[in-house]
Every structure is written in structure tokens, then in C-alpha cells.
């Protein structure tokens, strides 16, 4: 500890602290622009100059290390003189266009100019003009306003992992720009808008639509990935105008992924379903809620009466709120059916019998920082979980060594030390190889149940390297990504992951696909005893489906099978915020339920954290919160226990009113015999399906600005050069892909980041829905 006196206040600070840290601790505000607690120190704006005893000149607080006994004045005459001097320099070339600047009212330069600027300028020459840059569809530029603090540059380099911006030219001609003719394509790009202390970088979708002081700031929680980022939703005239991060060091820190930030645009989409609709005699008609709900209740009742309770089932989106999931499962169980599932994109349910508790990350998110070994199995980590990948990236800088087993090797912008690039069908054997090598490395026997399987596999060099690396660590975790969860041998992969974690005394976790993947398990949105899982419900179509927040062609493991099952069903009730085009064909009732901004709700994130939120705007049109719709439906069906006045009451019931309810139910470990089935059968190549981040849920699919980004480009048929040669196709060629379920045409792309013998074809997209299952064998044929 070091002692420092700041503005007359003596405090103790940690070794290695800067004067800025100490000032923050002492409660003295030092004006600054380039300094940001999450970025490296640049010391280029010079605004934080302070007076230090015995120093001949003012020193920048952000970059000056504290020495014992140091005396600092942050607001002395000398300090303020230096700060005002810097402010004058910052302002001489800064345009006086605050009235038309989007940053006006939330501008650090504007705020500090009030305290440190003069009312008029001594600079009477012409001001600098800097041409704007096209950074893509999300970030707008007014580069003339730039003060060259390089926060955005450092963000792309240090946090997002790729230096997409830089400072070109010298002196007064210095400009912040992307590489020539490039845009900023990071999945975290929106954060540079928050970081920019002036109006040089602003939000393109939000631009000129409201002033910050006109909007109210309401807390919410992101409904997308399993992180559960905390949001500030800004609202004007009952419309969501903008989404900003709500700082939460334990989850999203001060960042948001672009998905969290810009998906709000979909809330105003033309595709919003605003009135209940039912189909009678083949014709769709808009009806009032009473009619619609009676139609649905009667349909369900008559189906149960005529075909038995086992003929109805609920397919619930893991992006739905805890309240909706709870009431939906309660309603199903009230009808007498255990056919409930929320794991819509999963294919292997063999672990269900042995699983207890909800699969979760196995550790708090913030503890990623303390790991020194991480094995990821089957994941598109960077795109599936942008901010979790960011945490791993930071940890990797401090010594975390990351290994990967899976069929994909796209750049995560962080060092992956060891990588076993294997086809999905070989992942199990590869992972078994890691277990085998690890067991030898740490001299612990393999668990009895899987010992025979493991003994029979060969250890590949990659598996050996991964095992050696894991064995040398002291704090390890094994994570199963979305690809592993959707894998046809998911339970067996998990079994081996558990074994690896056991051998190194590490933790094992399932990252989880959606905002409420954990919550859905906790409230029982999974089949109970005798119930059918999602695959089963679609394999042998039911008479009636209650579908909540999911679309047949995008949100299921097999779009073709789902579509067929829905078309065959006597009654499909679709509850959602959007009018799905496909649902017009297969549904019988479409009930408009509120997206996350229009309802109170709760999500349980991947670390098991329960986060409740309130609606921030009124529901659009006739839209109603899902929990209210399900409550009324429960009442109409004559079921007990559907009398709730508030969403809170539903949450209390769902979580047993106990703070430990969720933590007691986290687990999700399986105990299964390892699958001896080959994961893929037939002649051709194995399909590797990513779920592109801007197609993953109904909301992002309809966010126009996100849809214009590179990440939303139409899927390609990606394969390595060997696979392309084997199938006789060239890069850029149009190819026909054929699976057991159907045929689609895509453009081929030679991509060495795909395992040999595989074709990577994204799911959740119109152009690939015809292929059916996300995994399995497909043939490739040039056109």
C-alpha cells in the first residue's frame, strides 16, 4: 500500500495505482477524455494534468504512478491552468455545432467545456475539416468533431480483439479511420459510440431521432444470448429509441454486443403482430382477444377430450421470460400433458433420464478472469457469445490458455493454443482421446463407465497437446458451446467433458444458447416423466401444439420436420411478437405477445443469476404480455392456480419464493453410456451448422441495421480446399446441397476454418431451412 495526499486528503492506495486511480478513490474528479478504466493508458488528451509536489510541470493523472508520500492537487491554480490550457486546444478545431450534434447533452467535451472552456475563442483561423468515414450500418461518423483520444482505436484493438480503426497521418492532419475501404465489422462495434467522448461516432440507427434529455432511461435485461447483459432502454413517447449498457461488472461490464444494442429496431418492425388472429375455414381474420382466447381454449379442450392429453404439446422458446415459461408449462401440465420442451435446436436427449438440475456455465461469469486453462468444445464462441468471448480474450492476455475441440476454426481474435479440428462425427473420439491422454498425464484412472470406450481410442497429437496443457494448469474449465449442445451426441460429449473436468479438478459448464436457457430448465419447461421431448413431438406429430416465441423454419433443430409436423397438426397456437410468414400457413391462431420491452419478466443467465425487469413501454397495439395471455388461457381452460395480478407473483411462484431456489437447481450433469452410434451416416459430407448471430432469435432477424452488417450476409457453403476438391466445386461456385430432407442451392466458399469432410452451412436462415436437420450428412454438387 502507498500513501498519497490528494487535495489535502490522505489515503492509502494499492501498489501500482495511478494518480487517477487514487483520485477516484479519494472522490476527486479529474477531467479526462482519453482515459478509460477498461482501456490501456494513452495519456494523449492531456486533460487530466494535475499538480504534483516537486514535479516541475503538471503531470497526467492517468499515467503517473503513485509514489509513497506523493502530494497531488487536482484543482489547484496550477492544475486548473493546465487543464484550461488543454481545453482551449481541444476546442480550437472542434466545430461549434452542438445544437445539431447527436452527442449534445451527453458529450464529455461539452460538459467539461462548461467548467474549463472560455466563453469565446482566441483562435480566429479556419477550423479543421475531416472527411467522414463509412464504418458500416451501425456507427455514424462526424470526424471533424474527433479529438483524437484514440479510445475507439484502443477498443477495437484491446477489447474487440482486432484493430479495425487506427490513427493515420500526422499532427493536425491526424485522422481516425478504418483500413482503406473497410468498415468496422466487429460484433462489439457499438461500444465505440459509448466510448467516443464527443460526437464523432454516433449511432446510425438512432441518429437525429431524439435528444438524450427527452428520453427516460429504464433498466432492462437483454433477451438474446445467455449472458443476460444489463440494459438501459431509452424511451420517448412510449417508443424505444435506443439501448445502452447498464454497467454490471459481474456480467457485461460496461459493454454491449451489437446484438444487445441494436436489436431494439425490430420492436417497431412492420412485421409486428398487433392483433390476435385466428384461422377459420382457411381464412385468417383479426379478432378481439376474447374471441381468440376462447377459440384457442376450445381447440385445446376438444383436442384433449377427443385425442387425449398426450396429443398436445408445448414448444417454448428459451428466449421467453421465466413467467411465460412457467405458466406455459403449468398450463400444459394442467391439461395433463408432460409434452413440454424449450431446447428447440437440440437433437440429443439421451441425457435427460440421468440429468438433474439445469445445465449451466458451472461458474460465475466473472471468474473467467481467474481461470488459467479453458477447453471449449463445439462452439462459435465469438459470434454466439460475443461478450463472453471478450472476457476470455482479456483472460488470455493474462495467461489463460484456451484449447478447442470442434469442426470449426474461425478466428476468435484470441489465442487458441491447441485446436483439434475434427468433423462432428469424430468429436466424441477426439474428446475421448483427450480424456485418455489426460488420465495418463495426471495419473488418475478414467471413470469406470467410460473406461472401455476411452481405452479403445487413439490419442491424436492435438488431443495430446490439449491434455498436456490442461494437466499443466491449476484452474481449469471445460465449456460446451452451442454446437456441442446441438450435437447429435451431445450427452456423450458432455459425459466426456465432465470426465476431463474431474481429472483436472476443474469446472464443467454448458454455455447455453439463449437468455433463459437455464431459467427454462429451472421452471420445468422440459418434459416430465412420460413426456415427450421436442424431437419426439416433431417426429411423431401431435394433434395440437402451443408454440411460444419460436418460428418453425428458424428456431428448431430441423426446420423441415417442424414445418411438416405443424402442418399436420389439427391446432397450432403461435404466441409471438411477430407475424411469421410461415405461421400464416401452419398456425391456426396467432396471439400477439409482448417482446421484452413491453412486459415484465425474468431471465436466468448462464451463471444462474436471476434478473427481473419491468416493461419499459406500453405493448404495441393489441399486444399483451405473454404471462397475462397464458393466465387468461389457464382460466378459460378451467385450470387452477392461474390467478395472478402481477408478473412478480408469477415469478415468486415459479421460483418458489426462495433466493436459493435457482442455485439449488443448477447442475445438469449427465451419466450416460457413451454413444456408439456414428454421429452421421450416409455418403457425403457432415454438415456443421452455425446459427449466425443476427438470425438467432425472432427479434434480431427483424432488426434492419443489424441485417445490413457483414455478419448478416447470406449463408455460404463453406468447406476446406480438400473437401471442395473432393466434391469438384470451386470457390464462388453455385452448389446444390442435398440432405435426406431436401435440397438447397448456395454459393461455395473455400474456407480452411472448416474441418476436413465437413460443409459448414448456417442454420436459422430461409435459404438453408430446406436442408432439415442442423447436423447429418449432405452431398455437394456443383451447378
Amino acid at each position: 500500500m502507498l500513501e498519497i495526499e490528494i487535495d489535502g486528503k490522505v489515503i492509502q492506495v494499492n501498489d501500482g495505482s495511478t494518480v487517477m486511480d487514487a483520485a477516484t478513490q479519494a472522490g476527486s474528479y479529474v477531467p479526462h477524455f482519453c482515459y478509460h478504466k477498461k482501456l490501456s493508458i494513452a495519456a494523449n488528451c492531456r486533460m487530466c494534468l494535475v499538480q504534483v509536489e516537486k514535479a516541475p510541470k503538471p503531470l497526467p493523472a492517468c499515467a503517473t504512478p503513485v509514489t509513497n508520500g506523493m502530494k497531488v492537487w487536482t484543482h489547484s491554480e496550477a492544475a486548473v491552468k493546465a487543464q484550461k490550457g488543454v481545453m482551449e486546444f481541444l476546442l480550437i478545431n472542434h466545430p461549434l455545432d452542438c445544437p445539431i450534434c447527436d452527442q449534445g447533452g451527453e458529450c464529455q467535451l461539452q460538459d467539461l467545456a462548461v467548467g474549463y472552456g472560455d466563453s469565446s475563442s482566441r483562435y480566429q483561423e479556419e477550423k479543421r475539416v475531416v472527411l467522414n468515414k463509412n464504418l458500416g450500418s451501425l456507427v455514424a461518423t462526424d470526424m471533424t468533431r474527433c479529438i483524437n483520444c484514440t479510445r475507439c482505436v484502443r477498443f477495437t484493438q484491446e477489447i474487440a480483439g482486432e484493430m479495425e480503426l487506427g490513427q493515420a497521418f500526422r499532427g493536425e492532419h491526424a485522422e481516425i479511420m478504418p483500413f482503406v475501404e473497410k468498415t468496422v465489422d466487429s460484433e462489439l462495434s457499438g461500444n465505440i459510440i459509448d466510448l467516443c467522448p464527443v460526437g464523432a461516432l454516433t449511432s446510425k440507427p438512432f441518429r437525429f431521432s431524439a435528444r438524450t434529455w427527452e428520453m427516460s432511461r429504464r433498466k432492462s435485461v437483454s433477451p438474446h444470448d445467455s449472458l443476460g447483459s444489463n440494459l438501459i432502454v431509452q424511451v420517448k413517447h412510449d417508443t424505444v429509441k435506443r439501448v445502452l449498457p447498464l454497467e454490471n461488472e459481474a456480467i457485461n461490464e460496461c459493454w454491449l454486443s451489437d446484438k444487445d444494442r441494436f436489436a431494439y429496431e425490430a420492436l417497431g418492425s412492420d412485421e409486428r403482430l398487433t392483433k390476435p388472429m385466428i384461422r377459420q375455414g382457411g381464412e385468417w381474420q383479426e379478432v378481439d382477444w376474447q374471441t381468440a382466447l376462447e377459440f384457442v381454449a376450445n381447440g385445446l379442450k376438444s383436442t384433449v377430450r377427443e385425442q387425449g392429453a398426450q396429443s398436445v404439446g408445448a414448444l417454448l422458446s428459451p428466449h421467453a421470460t421465466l413467467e411465460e415459461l412457467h405458466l406455459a408449462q403449468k398450463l400444459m401440465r394442467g391439461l395433463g400433458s408432460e409434452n413440454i420442451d424449450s431446447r428447440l435446436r437440440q437433437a440429443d436427449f439421451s441425457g435427460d433420464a440421468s440429468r438433474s438440475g439445469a445445465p449451466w456455465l458451472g461458474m460465475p461469469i466473472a471468474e473467467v478472469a481467474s481461470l488459467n486453462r479453458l477447453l471449449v468444445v463445439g462452439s462459435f464462441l465469438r459470434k454466439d457469445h460475443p461478450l463472453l468471448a471478450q472476457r476470455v480474450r482479456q483472460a488470455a492476455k493474462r495467461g489463460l490458455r484456451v484449447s478447442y475441440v470442434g469442426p470449426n476454426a474461425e478466428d476468435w481474435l484470441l489465442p487458441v493454443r491447441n485446436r483439434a479440428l475434427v468433423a462432428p462425427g469424430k468429436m466424441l473420439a477426439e474428446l475421448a482421446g483427450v480424456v485418455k491422454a489426460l488420465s495418463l498425464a495426471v495419473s488418475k484412472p478414467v471413470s469406470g463407465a467410460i473406461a472401455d470406450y476411452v481405452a479403445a481410442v487413439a490419442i491424436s497429437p492435438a488431443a495430446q497437446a490439449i491434455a498436456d496443457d490442461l494437466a499443466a494448469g491449476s484452474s481449469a474449465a471445460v465449456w460446451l458451446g452451442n454446437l456441442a449442445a446441438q450435437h447429435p451426441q451431445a450427452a456423450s460429449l458432455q459425459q466426456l467433458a465432465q470426465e476431463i473436468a474431474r481429472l483436472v479438478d476443474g469446472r464443467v459448464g454448458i454455455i447455453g444458447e439463449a437468455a433463459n436457457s437455464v431459467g427454462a430448465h429451472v421452471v420445468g419447461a422440459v418434459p416430465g416423466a412420460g413426456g415427450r421431448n421436442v424431437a419426439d413431438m416433431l417426429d411423431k406429430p401431435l394433434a395440437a401444439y402451443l408454440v411460444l416465441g419460436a418460428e418453425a423454419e428458424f428456431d428448431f433443430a430441423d426446420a423441415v420436420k417442424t414445418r411438416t409436423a405443424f402442418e399436420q397438426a389439427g391446432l397450432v397456437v403461435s404466441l409471438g411478437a411477430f407475424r411469421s410468414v410461415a405461421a400464416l400457413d401452419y398456425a391456426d391462431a396467432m396471439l400477439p405477445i409482448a417482446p421484452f420491452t413491453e412486459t415484465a419478466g425474468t431471465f436466468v443467465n448462464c451463471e444462474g443469476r436471476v434478473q427481473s425487469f419491468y416493461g419499459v413501454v406500453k405493448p404495441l397495439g393489441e399486444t399483451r404480455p405473454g404471462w397475462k395471455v397464458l393466465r387468461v388461457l389457464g382460466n378459460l381452460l378451467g385450470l387452477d392456480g392461474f390467478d395472478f395480478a402481477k408478473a412478480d407473483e408469477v415469478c415468486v411462484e415459479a421460483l418458489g419464493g426462495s433466493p436459493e431456489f435457482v442455485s439449488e437447481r443448477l447442475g445438469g450433469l449427465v451419466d450416460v453410456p457413451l454413444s456408439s452410434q456414428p454421429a452421421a451416416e450416409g455418403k457425403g459430407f457432415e454438415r456443421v451448422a452455425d446459427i449466425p448471430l443476427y438470425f438467432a432469435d425472432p427479434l434480431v432477424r427483424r432488426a434492419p441495421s443489424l441485417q445490413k452488417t457483414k455478419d448478416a450476409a447470406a449463408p455460404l457453403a463453406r468447406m476446406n480446399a480438400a473437401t471442395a476438391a473432393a466434391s469438384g466445386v470451386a470457390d464462388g461456385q453455385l452448389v446444390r446441397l442435398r440432405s435426406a430432407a431436401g435440397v438447397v442451392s448456395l454459393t461455395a466458399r473455400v474456407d480452411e476454418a472448416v474441418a476436413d469432410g465437413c460443409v459448414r452451412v448456417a442454420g436459422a436462415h430461409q435459404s438453408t431451412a430446406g436442408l432439415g436437420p442442423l447436423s447429418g450428412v449432405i452431398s455437394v454438387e456443383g451447378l
Partner: protein
Amino acid sequence: MSTHELIFAGLDGDRTWRLEDYVARGGYSALKKIINEKISPEDVIAEVKKSGLRGRGGAGFPTGLKWSFMPRAFPGAKYLACNSDEGEPGTFKDRDILRYNPHSVIEGMTIAAYAMGCERGYNYIHGEIFDVYQRFEEALAEARAAGFLGQNILGTDFGFELFAHHGYGAYICGEETALLESIEGKKGQPRFKPPFPASYGIYGKPTTINNTETFASVPFIINDGGEHFLNLGKPNNGGTKIFSVSGHVGRPGNYEVRLGTPFSELLALAGGVRGGRRLKAVIPGGSSAPVLPADIMMDCTMDYDSISKAGSMLGSGAVIVMDESTCMVKALERLSYFYFEESCGQCTPCREGTGWLYRVVHRIEHGKGRPEDLDLLNSVTANIMGRTICALGDAASMPVQSFVKHFGSEFEYHIEHKQCLVPADVQNEGSKIYVGPTC
């Protein structure tokens, strides 16, 4: 009145830069002496300390002391860098050292590497003197072939790999930490200090950076002893120094003299003021050094302490001589334009301030000055000085402050009369170049 040449001694053939000529002049004898007599690194540093050698690049920091900052027991790689990025207007000595006597630098660096335990070194050569860079590469090849560089130097365990690296002409890359960034392949922008290069230099490893002339002096210190070198100059100002004399003199060029030589002698060596005109002002240490009026300058001796006492800096030893035909406003305008163009743009006061200074001086020069402009210049320079990451801000400010201080009346005349105090025909005659009608 005479030169006293060490580095430049015997450079009167066209092959003087070749290894064989250098060895014939006694080159590499210092390195051999260290090896043969098994002089310890500590003793080498002690000798350099004793010599009073001060950095020849501009700051004049005692070289031996700088060498002693290198952590002895550091486990990893340590680097040595030579700053041949000679960009200071008026300075052209390092170019000639590298052109005519490159092996003196190689020998000096090898000795320095031996003294500080550096495994690798780089000579960062200014981008606009590409022929010099190419010649240095050739000299390196000669030294390697002869066993003076590389592994097992002169058959010992001592190894030192030296590489030439050329910049692209940015003035800022002569700032030592910008130079390090540039060597690492990054944009040449100064680093914030601390940490200093001795603890965090090239690739984050301990690094010592010295000027070309500094290294070239080292062999003489080892050969003749630190004390002898010190006595060539005066106390605290040891050795000889090469002065690049330019401007209104009869024979502009590099002159190597003992430190402490009177300025008047140096001026006479350079052929005196051209055309018999009166001396008006001298910038004694490169464009960043404050200008001194003739009367002050004529009383100075050419050494660090004397020039410093007179209110300027010996700097890199670039002596810019201006006679009575010089318009000081125009001279300052040119200097300010240089700093405006060469500011790296990293930190605010320099990025914004250098342009402001230039524009105000430009305005005064072009008859659009305002009465408050001199106060404005002083105020802007005060806001730049001491507030920037590196010394470029100070370097841009000091000429402005000193010109205004010593020649304020010329600026006032310009502002008041919209024309120059020195008649245009006198200026034209003095510089033999056309000077615009307003000046």
C-alpha cells in the same frame, strides 16, 4: 583557431569508410583492447563516466550514467539502439559520420553492447539519406566478415548482432521512444515516460539509445582513456564535438572542435559571416534551441554549460547563423511550419498548438498581424511547454518564445507597418533568393 578531429580525423580519401581504411587509422583497436586486456563491462562504463561524454543527440545527458541505468541482472534480451534519425533542421553531422566513418559507430556500439550486455542492436537511420543506410549495411557486412560483429566476436563468447533500420523521414522518429515504436513496426509516436527505455524499451525489454556521434566517440575514450577525452574539452563537457555550421557563413559544413572552443573561433573556421555582413542571430543547437542575438552569442564558448547559461541549448550542435539581412519573422515562420508539419498528432497541446503558432506567425509575416498576437504567441507556447508527452511541443515553442523575446521589435514592426523592418532588397541580397513584396 583550429579543428581538433577524432571522429573526422584522416577522412580524406574516397575509401575512408571501408573497414581496411578504418583499421589502418587504428579502428577496432579499442574493441581489441577490451577483449585482449579483458576489461570488465563495469570498467568500460566507469571509463565512459570519467570521460564526461554527454549525449550528442541534443539533450546532453551523461552517457556513462545512462549506461549504468541498464539492469545488469535482467534475465531476458537487452537491446541497444543508435539514433541516426537526424531530422533536426540544421543538423547534418551524423550523416557525415555514417557516410565517411561508419565503422566508428559500429565499434562504439559493439563496445556499448559489451558494457551493457546487449545481444542485439539497431541503427535507426533517417529515411531521406538512403545511400547512407545502404553504405551502413555494407559496413555491417564487412564488420561481420572480419569478426567484429556477430557471434563470438574476436573469438570470444561475446556476441552482438547489429542491424541497420531505416525510417521514412518523420522528424518525430528521432524522439527515442517514437524510434523504438518505429523499430517495432508501429506508427512512430512517442511513448509516455515513465517507464523509461532502460526498463521498457524495444519489445518491452531494457534498451539504451544513444546518438551516432556519441557511439562514434566511445572508441577514442577506450583507446586514450576517459581522462584524456575529458581534458580535450572542459570539466563536465568532455571531448570534441562536431558542429554543423549552416546559414550565412562563408564555408558551411561540419567542424569537429574541442568543447569549450569560443563561438567566434568556430565562426571563423566556417569562413565568418558571408559577405562581411554583421552577425544578427545564431541558433546554437539545432532548430529547437532558443535563438541568441549576436552579442550574447559572441561571448559564448561552444559547450553545454556555456550555451545553457546564455539561455539556449547546445542541442545537436547545429549552428544556424543569421546575418543582418535576415527577417526574423520569416525565419520563425519557416521554423514554425516545420513543427506544425512534424508534430505526430498524438497529444493535444502539440497537435493543436503547433498549427496555431504557425498560423499566427504566418499571419504576422503576411501583414495580417494583430497587436495582441505577441501575447497570444507567448500564451500559446506556455500552454504547450511541459504539457506534452514528448519534447516536440517544447521544441516547437522555444524558437517562438526566443524569437519574440529577442526580436520582439521586429514582430511589432511587422504588425504595425504590415511590412518588414529589414528592407526587401537587403533580404534578397542577403539570401540571394527572391523575397516576397510584403516582406
